């Protein structure tokens, strides 16, 4: 298993590199001069030069990139153009928020997706299959932030079961954390559970026709065991293969859903940074996102290897 992790890590390393080059060079194309943004048009030529010097903007882009990367590797993503806070600090402060939301919604999406997909696959064309199919179709057309608004109206404003806004860190109170993360996570997980349900259903329908399922039944194993162990393990193989994509989608969705619940996560940070054209912040955010994506991919690769022995390096 270690060898698998290592091999995948090697394969994913270039991705990190390319993304860093891309974001760095891309954000350096900025049409407006960041110095203008910072000190306004009123500053003197000298002031401009000083700021330019301080930000290292007077050096060639390649040099700037190498310097930036060198610091980034050591965990220093530079400072915001605007309030000089450290990008690493700002991102790390909000990372747990967005991660909580993404992780819980992924969990919900996986559980709901598998349950609905399996139920539908067991009885193709039954009412439950139709319900799941219709549900999945509609689920994928509902914007997650709108669903979030709906949940707020019902469960926060009307029933008062959950807080309408805000986020409590898990370290402060696990219970309040769960309460604050539930509604946004459900809103976020909806369309992914629909997508996963579709995939599980089609994979499961295929697997259930396999010889080994019939052989397991012929051996007198219970239907429950055959479905949940023998069939599902195999049906999850193609699902896990695309799971990292779904989690990436959730990570992106979290940025928007956070706004519905006034949660101060990476989304808020990103939106502010865009409006202010705060380059170091955006570069840092992208890099952190890619880092997360790489970790998720690594994890799903390992699970994939576990479910599918043929994929393991021998």
């Amino acid at each position, binding site marked *: 298993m270690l060898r698998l992790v290592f091999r995948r890590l090697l394969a994913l390393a270039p*991705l990190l590199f*390319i*993304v860093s080059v*891309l*974001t760095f060079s891309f954000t350096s*194309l*900025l*049409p407006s001069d960041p110095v203008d943004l910072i000190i306004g048009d009123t500053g003197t030529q000298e002031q401009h030069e000083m700021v330019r010097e301080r930000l290292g903007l007077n050096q060639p882009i390649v040099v700037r990139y190498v310097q930036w990367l060198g610091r980034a590797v050591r965990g220093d993503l530079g400072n915001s153009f605007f309030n000089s806070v450290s990008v690493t600090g700002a991102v790390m402060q909000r990372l747990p928020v967005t991660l909580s939301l993404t992780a819980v919604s992924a969990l919900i999406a996986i559980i709901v997706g598998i349950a609905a997909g399996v139920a539908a696959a067991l009885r193709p*064309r039954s*009412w439950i299959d*139709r319900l799941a199919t*219709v549900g999945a*179709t509609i689920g*994928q*057309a509902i*914007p997650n*932030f*709108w669903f979030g*608004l709906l949940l707020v*109206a019902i469960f*926060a*404003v009307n029933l008062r079961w959950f807080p*309408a806004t805000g986020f409590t860190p898990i370290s402060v109170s696990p219970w309040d954390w769960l309460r604050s993360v539930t509604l946004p996570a459900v809103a976020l997980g909806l369309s992914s559970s629909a997508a996963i349900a579709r995939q599980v259903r089609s994979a499961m329908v295929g697997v259930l026709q396999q010889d*080994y399922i*019939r*052989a397991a*039944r*012929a*051996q*007198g*194993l219970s239907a429950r*065991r055959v479905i949940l162990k*023998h069939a599902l*393990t*195999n049906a999850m*193989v193609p699902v896990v293969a695309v799971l990292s994509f779904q989690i*990436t*989608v959730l990570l*992106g969705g979290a*940025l*928007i859903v956070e*706004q519905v619940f006034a949660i101060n996560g990476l*989304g808020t940070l990103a*939106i502010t*940074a*865009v*409006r202010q*054209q*705060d*380059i170091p912040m*955006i570069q840092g*955010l*992208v890099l952190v*996102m890619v880092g997360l*994506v790489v970790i998720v*991919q690594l994890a799903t690769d390992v699970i994939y290897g576990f*479910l*599918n*022995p*043929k994929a393991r390096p021998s």
Partner: protein
Amino acid sequence: MTARATDSGATRSRRPRWLAGGSFVIVAVAAAVLALLLFLAIFADLVSPYDPLTQNLMDSLQGSSAAHWLGTDDLGRDVLSRLIYGCRIAVIAAAEATTIALLIGVPIGLFIGYRGGWWDWIVMRVVEAIVSIPGIMVAIVILALLGTGLHKAMIALGILFSTSFLRLARGVVLAEREEVYVRSARVIGASDSRILLRHILPNIAPPLIVQTTLTVGAVLLAEAGLSFIGLGVQPPDASWGTMLSTAAAYMDLHPFLAIPPGIAIILTVLSVNLIGDVIRDGIGRGITVAARHDTPVARFEAASAVEPSAAALPPLRPDEVLRVEGLQVTVASQDGTGVPLITDLSLSIAKGETLGLVGESGSGKTLTGLAILGLTSVALRTTHGSIMLNGRDLRSLSQREIQHVRGNEVAMVFQDPTTSLNPAFTVGSQIAEVLRAKKGLSKKEAWERTVALIDRVGIPRPEERARAFPHELSGGMAQRIAIARALSCNPSLLIADEPTTALDVTVQQEILDLFRDLQAEFGMAILFVTHDLAVAADICDRISVMYAGEMVEMAEVGRLFARPRHPYTRGLLTAMPHASDRNPPLPTIRGNVPRPGTWPAGCRFSNRCDFRIAACERRIPLTGTNRLVRCIRAEELSLEAAQ
């Protein structure tokens, strides 16, 4: 005929046909929604009752009224009017972003697909990098450069979604390139680029159309999202996303504000996706918006039993393990009546005996094995007859009871060992699992017993092999494992379905020997299903020949081979290759086994039989006592053959 027609009509109307019959309706509704959207977008100025930007602070956050059908928002603007103008934004957004995506993605994709080499490598790495980041983050980076606003947001989305068009176009070029290479059998030159283009254009259109519908749906959702977080359409302009953003601020005071734009988004996206699905399906099978065919709803009652042949019932024996009488298996059919697959099948097997079930594919022999286990697929059902195993009728058992019987009293070995073992688990764990579930052994006991069983079926280094996955074993080895699993609970009946067919010839004999060995040791009865008479001759005590769902002859092996009585058996025997002759001129029986539902009314072999007479058009019973045969001319023909 008329009775049948009304009957099936009635059946159809009883079925829920949500997708089949309803799909046309759904597509029509989706198309109507999109038409309405376009209409409102174009004529927003004429249709909307108010100016979407006119404020009236006296009238803010009103509910539905005659003046304002959908009420007003926080600034007293008419929600309906804003919704209608939102249609315009939605159409513009979808058109703009999709066009940009097409214009960027397709040419670049064609180019790198055609050029290959470094261009291709670099661009594809960039594309991989872009798609690995959450889409919204990509849009945010681009918007950081461009600034916010509808058109800038759509450029960002256009760039984002261009990656899928790019990959699609590249894929089509690569595929067609291959084609052209193959056809012209030479490396492509400059003059061939026109040929390539001519091949690409017709092939790229269908997937492009599908991808476009997918993109339109995604753009609509993304635009709403970007406007919602304030990076797309800017207030006070009315878009569904900005309307929701306003609504978000008033969820406690006036939650209704979120409903109209939300419904508008969902309906639009849903309609686009549904139309896209239909187009995709249509392209998949040559542009027909045909309703899906329903799988037949199981209606088996209509199939009447084929009257059993009195003589066919085998005489009772004290050491009998399995006794099947008058078995009939039926498949549900399109018109609601059942089509029989097996009729009037009776057989018995004693302890330590091996009965061969022989026939061409399509004769129903494999199905017989599955029917005994009660494992036929959902559309099939055993409609008549009894299956007595150790004195108990399996057909009368509950699901729980028959589950207990499977594995413990009867087990099955399947044709292809590489597919009958679960690829996800080690072979040892699959045997141990059965032992634990059926015999209640502890983990350790089960494992020890498993290793012993693997050793018993003649696999060297059993400890080690038990930890192997199915794909790591050879076919013969895997079949030994499957046999070990089947025998793990010491069943009194083993059903072997073509257990040697998928194996290498050299391995076949070993497996047959293993069966013989194990039978001598465990004493189980074996129902050996095969199409290969030579294999049956090798291992069976008696042979039943099946044809078109019924037994046509049954005899002890020696007698069957010495004097086959049914013309079909004779045909099979003459078609059988002999070890002695190198190039046997195989006289096969002309024609094929007729498919179920097309069986001749009388003797089912009559359309292939050289000895047919007029009397053969009646139903032929199985006759005889120890040897059975289903042919009215059996007596005279066997006499003739003897001369």
